């Protein structure tokens, strides 16, 4: 049995996988471990590489794209799965494996890819920046957000924020890794505790006012809301604490509306524009 201890990054996996592949080590003879979990063991143990027995095989861009996303998933089996796919496509004679969406390995990789994509999408949606100040020299506003992503997606999600918020300085702090933009350069630093982030912003009251007012109590669909805005994200959303009271008050509000007497029609006021509209016998087109 071969033990592969890698840092949990695609690059690290790729290097190891390439070496294993060249030595024709089959997937069920490899155990993959996250070396960052047990730093003392790294890099002491690593079996001496036997001589290469076959040239480095080439894989499709589609696979590398899939691997890039799947690598961000937190399931520890991801490295083994990726290596198994790689093996089957190169040494297993299944070159077109990725075109078989019903294959169990392909399907699992696809599901993990979707889970990671969804987590990235939710990060784009649910990061909430707070204004922390203004850079005196450049005049640029500075914003900081605290976010707890699902999966290791900070690097995959960050380019979106760069494109969208180029004109302001921002940092997104997370427990695992932080992203920063200063107008010139996107860069990353290690994770921090939540206490490093600001805990309010003067605009949040207005935002809550908006959230309350745009809600229509006559069409309660709580399950639908939770499906799209899972509770795990609520604690960092300034509007989420309002949700229980909005739900609780809705039936009374609806009953009041239903019990209200209908209002009389008010005749048109004297207005040149209204009088200019042809009012009668509109032809049906």
């Amino acid at each position, binding site marked *: 049995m071969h033990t592969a201890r890698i840092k949990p990054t695609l690059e690290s996996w790729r290097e190891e996988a390439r070496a294993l592949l060249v030595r024709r080590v089959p997937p069920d003879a490899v155990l993959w471990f996250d070396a960052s979990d047990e730093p003392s063991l790294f890099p002491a143990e690593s079996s001496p590489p036997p001589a290469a027995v076959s040239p480095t095989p080439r894989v499709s861009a589609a696979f590398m794209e899939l691997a890039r996303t799947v690598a961000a998933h937190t399931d520890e089996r991801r490295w083994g799965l990726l290596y198994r796919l790689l093996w089957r496509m190169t040494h297993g004679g299944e070159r077109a494996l990725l075109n078989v969406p019903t294959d169990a390995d392909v399907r699992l990789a696809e599901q993990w890819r979707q889970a990671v994509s969804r987590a990235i999408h939710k990060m784009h949606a649910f990061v909430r920046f707070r204004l922390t100040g203004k850079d005196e020299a450049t005049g640029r506003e500075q914003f900081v957000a605290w976010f707890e992503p699902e999966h290791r997606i900070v690097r995959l999600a960050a380019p979106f924020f760069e494109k*969208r918020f180029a004109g302001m300085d921002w940092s997104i702090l997370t427990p695992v890794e932080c992203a920063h933009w200063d107008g010139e350069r996107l860069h990353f630093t290690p994770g921090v505790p939540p206490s490093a982030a600001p805990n309010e912003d003067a605009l949040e009251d207005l935002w809550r006012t*908006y959230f309350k007012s745009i809600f229509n109590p006559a069409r309660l669909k709580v399950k639908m809301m939770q499906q799209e805005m899972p509770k795990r994200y609520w604690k960092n959303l300034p509007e989420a604490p309002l949700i229980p009271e909005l739900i609780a008050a809705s039936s009374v509000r609806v009953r009041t509306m239903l019990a209200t007497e209908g209002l009389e029609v008010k005749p048109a006021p004297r207005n040149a524009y209204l009088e200019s509209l042809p009012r009668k016998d509109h032809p*049906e087109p």
Partner: protein
Amino acid sequence: MDLQRKLEILADAAKYDASCASSGAARKDSRGSQGVGSTGGAGICHSYAPDGRCISLLKVLLTNACLYDCHYCINRRSSNVQRARFTPEEVVQLTLDFYKRNYIEGLFLSSGIIQSADHTMELVIEVARKLREEHLFRGYIHLKTIPEASPALIERAGRYADRISINIELPTQAGLTRLAPEKNLARTQAAMGHIHGKIEERLADKRKPEAPKPPPFATGQSTQMLVGADESTDADILQRADALYTGYRLRRVYYSGFSPIPEPSKVLPIKPPPLVREHRLYQADWLLRFYDFKVGEIVTPDAPHLDLALDPKLSWALRNRAQFPADINRAPRETLLRVPGLGARNVDRILAARRHCRLRLVDLLRLRVPMKKVLPFIIAADHTPAHLDLDGDSLRQRFLPPPQQMELSLAGPPPTAADNASVLTGEL
């Protein structure tokens, strides 16, 4: 009146518009500028209200004062609702402040009609102009336009907006005459035709190799139809929607179940339709746009309303049992798209996979196909439905949802989780 109170009134006044899309815009972003904003992706829902609706845009009215008297609308002149009015600067600042905190994708601005259609349109355009020209805002802008506004103003609105829309409101002129006396179907459709022409013109200019860059124009238009405010049948609604899709290439028709409002009108006593009716209309809409169904297949003169208990594709399949079972290893794409429970994406996966192997039920399970729903309608390498399955009277019974508690007394059978998912993904 302070800003908070204005926001309360003018967001409340805007919430009956169902449109929330922020997708389909031309690709643009703020890199290399001192501004903010980007569009062109799939569109993001930044929050969800407990009504299940996505919050992606700051959706407000410039003012809720209105000369018109649309009886389903809380802002009509006969309503006693408190009136408020934003200045253009206030809307601009709110949009930027919310945007920079990543609360929203952009602005959806609409307005009650004051003084005249043109006057109102000019105020609305001024907000968009300031955002784009003075603040270099590259986020999403959706402007509601007024069909009676002059064509030149509609063109200006389209220069700043990613999307423009005009609400058709009701599917027939008879309905409008009774419930929205100032509105007119022919005028609305003429304005839609004008916008459609501009969108096409811009696309054609962009395709010419050497032409100078055409002036920007919105990339899409949409509309909204009210459901359950008048006597229109689902057939009326779907026929109108189909005519709008084919005639003006609308991106979306939104269906908005008429819902009780404070300040109701005598002309329109509140009888809200079950929420699930709106939901079934969205499903039927998907069938028209992505599954090659014709309106006449979904609703018929004998049954002009959609079945509230079953999704429209399943209802169609039950009425057309002779066309089943379909062999998932052989049937063409068109046939597979009509199998209840098979969404477009899974149909494509099936087509790809069957080039490499004969598909069995376990393959469908892996694709998370709802087995109970598809089994009576398909043949797989290891499955043939019993003849009794397709013939029996019990087939419809089998699909009916179990009786359950209603969420609100005014709701019909609530959509199931699978229904909700299908609205989001378009899988039917």
